């Protein structure tokens, strides 16, 4: 049963096309995150779901009901704002109970519900305080409780944690996830913090300039990006430029601009790839130092070295000036003693390289699609 659908949503601010044809199917009880750089339209989409903006084209369907033009107050959605938006003239309890009071619930019911929620967000006995008397993290918890009090069909969160410090963010994102899973509420979560998105979501929709680039589980988004934008936006990478030299069954060889050749695994290929300008992407950690054979190796000199605790980060400069970064976890002590300027050769496993079209940024070597992975993949997470 699909709970919330966005179908071909287009939103304009005057002439500015802010959201360009978004399609999203969000499952009942799922936490879906909208992730993307600043200004890509995350807030805009969320506000359209809440009803504060009406899309110019497209429809929003909740359950089986079209709600595109329904006013916000009739949507039964809870919302948490980046700036908490707690009413300073009401106590914590009054803030939380506001929605219930509007729904004309009996006093005793409101009282017990508010206390229940205060316990849920770990703020027992704080109901009589005013928002100004709470810390930032506590305020955001109250905002969460207030949004949940009306037992919303959908919980909307617009960067709820971005005003908090790192430790609190980590703590609260766990809490938001736990609480919404306990209550089984569907969550649309907006953030531009990739770690937060990876940690909290069942699925992530990566956006850029008003368009969805890829939707998938955090694992897929991280390890199987379908677009160079997704790959570079999430996690750290090395990019090597080059062109395709040959294609074999299941593999292909790319000649880098530095002259070295790298082989990579390619489940799906096409003769049109030959001679194509491509970009290869590789994370910092799959490198093997001092390889035995010379296949898939790169060489250069160590230019920088930083000890990071559990690993050592090396910056290697190739002859043509290209620089790549290695995170090495093994033999830390030995590597930490490496002198700057020493030559180094490293091996890159063929399966750790991803290939993208240098011009369009499309991923090469997979079934050509930006398609969603099956939705039930998300089920296993919760």
């Amino acid at each position, binding site marked *: 049963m699909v709970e919330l659908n966005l179908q071909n949503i287009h939103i304009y601010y005057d002439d500015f096309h802010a959201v360009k044809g978004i399609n999203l199917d969000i499952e009942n009880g799922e936490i879906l995150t909208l992730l993307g750089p600043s200004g890509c339209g995350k807030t805009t989409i969320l506000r359209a779901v809440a009803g504060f903006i009406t899309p110019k084209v497209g429809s929003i369907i909740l359950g089986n009901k079209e709600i595109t033009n329904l006013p916000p107050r009739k*949507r039964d959605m809870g919302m948490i*704002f980046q*700036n908490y938006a707690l009413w300073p003239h009401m106590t914590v309890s009054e803030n939380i109970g*506001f*929605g219930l009071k509007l*729904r004309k619930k009996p006093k005793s019911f409101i009282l017990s519900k508010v206390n229940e929620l205060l316990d849920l967000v770990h703020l027992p006995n704080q109901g009589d305080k005013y928002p100004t008397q709470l810390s930032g993290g506590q*305020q955001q918890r109250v905002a969460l409780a207030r949004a949940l009090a009306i037992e919303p069909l959908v919980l909307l969160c617009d960067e709820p944690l971005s005003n908090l410090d790192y430790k609190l963010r980590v703590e609260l994102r766990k809490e938001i996830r736990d609480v919404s899973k306990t209550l089984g509420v569907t969550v649309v979560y907006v953030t531009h913090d990739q770690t937060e998105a990876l940690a909290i979501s069942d699925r992530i929709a990566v956006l850029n300039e008003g368009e969805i680039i890829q939707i998938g589980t955090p694992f897929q988004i991280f390890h199987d990006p379908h677009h160079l934008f997704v790959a570079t936006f999430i996690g750290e990478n090395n990019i090597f430029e080059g062109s395709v030299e040959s294609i074999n069954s299941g593999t292909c060889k790319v000649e880098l601009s530095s002259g070295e050749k790298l082989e990579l695994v390619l489940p799906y290929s096409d003769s049109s790839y030959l001679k194509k300008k491509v970009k290869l992407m590789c994370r910092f950690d799959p490198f093997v130092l001092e390889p035995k054979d010379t296949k898939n190796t790169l060489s250069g000199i160590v230019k920088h070295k930083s000890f990071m605790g559990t690993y050592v980060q090396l910056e290697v400069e190739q002859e043509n000036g290209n620089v790549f970064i290695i995170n090495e976890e093994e033999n830390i002590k030995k590597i930490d003693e490496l002198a700057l300027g020493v030559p180094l050769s490293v091996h890159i496993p063929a399966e750790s390289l991803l290939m993208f079209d240098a011009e369009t940024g499309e991923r090469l070597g997979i079934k050509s699609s930006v398609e969603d992975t099956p939705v039930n993949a998300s089920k296993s997470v919760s």
Partner: protein
Amino acid sequence: MEKNVSYWEEKRLNLGYGLRQIKNDIRSDPISWSVIFFISLFFITFLVVPLILILYSAINYNGTIKFDAIVQIFSDKQFFDPIIGGGDYFIQIYTPPGGGVSTIFVTGLDFGIVLNTLIIGIFTTLLSVGIGLTTAFLMARVNFQGKTVLNGLLLIPLVLPPFVSGIGFFAMFGNEGIINKFFLGPVLGINVIFQGLFAIIFVQSMHYFTLIHLNVYSALMNADPSMEEQAENLGAKRSTITRKITLPLATPGIASGSILVFILSMEDLGTPIIFGGFGDAIAKKTMTYYIKNNFFAGDATTEIGKTSAAIGALLLVIAILGFIFIRKYVSLRQYSMVSKGRAGTYRSFNPNVFQKVGVYLFFAGLLITATLPHIGILFRSVTKAGTTDQFTSSFYQLIFESNQSQGFLLYVQNTLIYSFTATIFIMVLATMAGYVANRKKFFGMSFFDTLVTIPIAIPGVVLGIGYIRMFGNFPDWGIFTLNPLFFPPTILIISYTVRKFPFTVRSVYSGLQQTDEVLEEAALNLGASKPRVLARIIIPLIILNIVGGALVSLVYIMSEVSTTLILISDSRYGNLVWKLADISAGKLGVFAAVGVLLMMIQAVSLMVTNLLLRNRAEALTGI
């Protein structure tokens, strides 16, 4: 018991700690502290002491304390007459014995001087709040076209101080007024004349609602939009949001604005003087008017009369209580918005066609009513008395061709000298005061803050007679004497400086709030001296606030009535306001011309201020 001890012990320790800190800071920053010292001294001398003297005068009978005068103003019928007697009427129709046009007098009752003034204060406040809230809410939360124009138009009432407005009102509604003489009389065969409390309340409300409007409007525009969105999201209707969220959040603005209006309305001397000048007997029965006409104990003495002192003391106590309330309310409940970022813009209410027509009709009605005095005064200044179609420039000629040593040009010249001198003092002193008030966070600084902002609430008549009480026996030292009976300008300029100080100091303060102290520390760090930092870093950053605030002060100085009328005792030193108070029905034309000149000066100053200061509310209302 134990708790008590530790409480006082704690206070004592805090006090000791605070004083020690101040001592250290004085050593490292003597310049700022001398500023604090001298400005405090100035305000204690020219504000606190004269006021205390008046309070003391009210109860001091040759060394013994008696409350006779206080009792008198609450028992004597002339002052306190809550019972409506046979001679009282609210509306009366008068038909001349020989027949002719009948006149309907709408007057309001007479409850005695003290009660009348309270009634004026209360009703002016209620009316101003009603109108100001409505305009602010419509402008801030309802979608309709033409808001930019309206925003400007709504300031028009401010360019006409109530007393000039009174002249315009008379020009429109007086028995020789345009409306009666050329519309009601000829068409309906009756005249309608508004007088007494009713007229004063009307004229004042049409002016003071702008203060409420500005305060509430800025509160509504500065509140965080997500506060309202959240409520809507939880299922609240527009009306519920307004009632439960919007209005409560604007309460500090509404409360402080209304108290200010209440105080200003009661201490207003200009309106009663104008209506009194036109022969309105009840208008003369207000506290300020009484003080103005009776402050000397007798003809041959410079002593302040007991009754005037008692009335002054009452006005003063009300004003101070009101101000304390404003401060408490605004500072305690000033919602320094819990939130940081700001999401989205307001979702305004989209009216349907009928509602839209209603909104336009409301604004049209309000603006026409509020600008009738402006139109009246303008019209009267260019037409011959008793006509509407015989235009003349003679009134303006009379002003500009008058003899410099005694005519209107002298008054224009004096007005300019007094107001610009005072404004320059204010600029210099308020910049320094605003700076130390903002940067020095020490024990006792709230006293300093109060000292430099409270003058906004201090009734001018009381301060005026306070000066006479204090300096009335000083010898004649030429321009250096502070005795207004010998040479009024010096003490008059001081009174302007004190009274209109808050507008500039507020503006400077808020400017400084927006400039990071780091900028200053960086310069100090590089070896710049404090005065140099002020001159090269701070002042350039806040120059707009200084000039904008000073312009507001200037506007209010030029229309300051009460101290002007109390302190100027000699026509050689008269200024325009002083001259205007000499109004009577026969001199309407030339006085209207003077009023138009004042109006234009004020309009220009306000327009410039508006360009300079975007946050108009606190600048224009001073709170």
